[in-house]
């Protein structure tokens, strides 16, 4: 993928993903559960 297209893809992912996290509580809750599971496992 060319650099220009790659940067556009990154920008689109950033906007869509951050909007999803803010607007869909179920998604952010699931993501947080995964993160807390990761921390509980590896933060020892």
């Amino acid at each position, binding site marked *: *993928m060319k650099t220009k297209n*790659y940067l556009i*893809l*990154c920008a689109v*992912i*950033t906007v869509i*993903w*951050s909007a999803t*996290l*803010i607007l869909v509580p179920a998604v*952010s*809750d699931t*993501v*947080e*559960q995964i*993160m*807390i599971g990761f*921390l509980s496992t*590896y*933060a*020892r």
Partner: protein
Amino acid sequence: MLRFIVQVIGIVVLVGAVTITTLKIDYMDADGPSILFPGGELVTGELHSGPDPDWTFTDDIPVIELQLDGPMSSRRIFIMESGGKIYVPSGYMQSFLGRLWKDWAFQAAEGDDMAVARINGIRYERQLIRISEGEVINGIAQKLAKKYSAGTPEAVAGTIKSINNGDTWIFELAPRPSILDPRLSTLDPQEGASDEN
């Protein structure tokens, strides 16, 4: 091929960074924390006044919301009642990730110990006092192990060991001095400062 792999890694890192940044900002000024990310000041809920209640009702409450005043932030945390007093733990204190995750505990231990606990929608003004030794540790460890893990003798022993070696810190949610002695809240701050200098 190498370029493609680097681009995929870049997207994975980007999604992680966007997730952490978005959720951190989203909850920064909220009335309470999320599961993992700190929230802002606890503003809703009746502010308790008068003598402490019988804290044994917290045995049925898995987590409470705890706000520290400096800096203003709140988080969800376990709670244990033992001997008529309430305590909160902070684990993973000796690992790199734990130090990032539990920065509030270091702040509290360094003196920013004024806190507000919201339990069942009621806010209690408290002071965090770290408990690191004494017989009281056994009762707290038993409650912690019983409430949040198997509660077996091995779990209790492991919890006591974790507290003794500093991997788990325990704080008492004690009444604030001004609540114990209302005269302290009416002292002239400059008068108090001159005593220290």
